[in-house]
């Protein structure tokens, strides 16, 4: 029963593999085709886009630094919004993390409550939260702080909760064996193990919040975005350029500080 050389055809994929590859490629192609064909696009605008963008950019040079004083103050306000909101969110997220970690939550009901808080906080974007709070508290920094806080609680709570779930069980067992109460076991066996993750996650979120708070102003919730929106509305493109430069500087500084903090503390 020897096979002739001619029969030993080689192919890269087995028929089943080939079929799956073909089907997924077809699905992707179909999805793209459907999107492009039905999307509500005015094609002349698309062909015109490079020219328009180039035009916009040309109107931005040279940047206008005349309102730099106001811009710097707005930057400081942005930093303050991000920092205060992060601190508040950290405080609120601790109990949320506690009830949404499987090994510390008091009972099933609190577990689901915690998960509900995490999911609803995480799946609503900061800007949508900001819309809501601008409607409630009026335009200004309060709406911005509360919006960032609401979004951050989910992020922090989820990651800190996961850190709680990943702790080493052995010290917990040892402290239970000494007759320590539940609250003291948490204090001595769980808290010290979670502290590093807690710092890392808080610093990470502060960095993200710094970026997020640059756009809060676009819906009226304070910070540098207010100036950006004003300049765009008045077609003052040279000031827009200055604001954009300022934002880049802010973001880079935030990244540098958070990287330094992470290295320093952990």
């Amino acid at each position, binding site marked *: 029963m020897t096979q002739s050389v001619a029969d030993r055809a080689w192919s890269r994929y087995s028929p089943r593999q080939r079929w799956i590859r073909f089907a997924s490629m077809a699905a*992707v192609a179909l*999805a*793209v085709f*459907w*999107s*492009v064909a*039905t*999307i*509500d*696009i*005015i094609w002349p*605008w*698309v062909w*015109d*886009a490079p020219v*328009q*963008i180039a*035009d*916009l950019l040309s109107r931005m040079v040279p940047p206008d630094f005349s309102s730099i004083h106001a811009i710097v103050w707005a930057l*400081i*306000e942005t930093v*303050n*919004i991000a*920092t*205060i909101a992060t601190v508040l969110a950290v405080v609120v997220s601790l109990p949320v993390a506690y009830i949404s970690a499987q090994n510390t939550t008091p009972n099933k009901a609190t577990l689901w409550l915690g998960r509900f808080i995490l*999911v*609803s906080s995480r*799946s*609503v*974007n900061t*800007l*949508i939260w900001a*819309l*809501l709070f601008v*409607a*409630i*508290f*009026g335009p*200004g*920094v*309060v709406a911005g702080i509360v919006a960032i806080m609401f979004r951050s609680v989910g992020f922090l709570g989820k990651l800190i909760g996961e850190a709680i779930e990943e702790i080493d069980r052995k010290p917990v067992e040892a402290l239970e064996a000494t007759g320590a109460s539940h609250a003291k076991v948490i204090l001595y066996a769980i808290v010290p193990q979670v502290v590093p993750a807690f710092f890392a996650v808080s610093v990470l979120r502060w960095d993200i919040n710094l*970026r*997020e708070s*640059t*756009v809060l102003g*676009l*819906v009226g919730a*304070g910070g540098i*975005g207010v100036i*950006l*929106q004003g300049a*765009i509305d008045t077609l003052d493109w040279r000031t*827009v350029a200055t604001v*954009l430069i300022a*934002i*880049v500087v802010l*973001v*880079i500084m935030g990244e540098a500080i958070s990287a330094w903090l992470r290295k320093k503390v952990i």
Partner: protein
Amino acid sequence: MSDSAVHRAWRKPPFIRNPIVRWVMLVACVGYAVWALYTLPFDWDRVAQGMERAARIFSGAFPPNFSRSELLIDGFLESLKIAIVSTLLGVLLSVPIAFMAARNIAAKPVYLLGRGLIIFARSFHPVIVAILFVKAVGFGPVAGILTLTLYSIGFVAKMLAERIEEIDMGQLEALRSTGTGHLAMLQYAVLPQIMPRQIGLAMYQLDSNLRASAVVGIVGAGGIGSTLMNAFGRYDYDFALAITIVIIAAILVSEAVSGRIRRNIW
């Protein structure tokens, strides 16, 4: 054992050993908090009305109003289309940029150019990019697609470049020793090593583009975000809540789907 009688007190060693640094840090933190809260322009009178307004908004929002489902579905489908097209564009464009930005493959000037493009694409919040594109190419999905394409490039190219830097150069060497050409080498030695990561990144990016497309719509770049903004602007809070619920549901579904696909590929 006799000298141990003096050990009647014990203090936990402070977190920061140097007492001067410790006190300066403490004073700086407290000082910053006071100063930040003092300088932020809080409009407490307006905030005080918050409860009342919140009550009005929430009573207006319940029950959520799905009666204009046509508008809702259109907006959602537009978001989906924007996400699909911009993911495809972003993933395709990120491949050459990632190769440019991989230290082990690209020449130094090309590498710097590639890194520069990635940093540029990452430095602005997509909402800021969106508002600029809206000004340049007008309201609607085109601005959204351009924004999210740039957003995708920033993330996918960065991650892919990191993957390319980690590839096994031995495989390249083996092919080079057989006299393989440059393009064939890319296809046989480099692409097989990075393809799974690229598909995983595409799935991840589709998920995050869907989230982001809900937000960039708020500044006029099309999709369900624009629908939400309109509903909010007209004080249709019940419709706005319906839209928010749809956004949350879509995000949860897309997170689950993309997570499952990535697990199967990686």
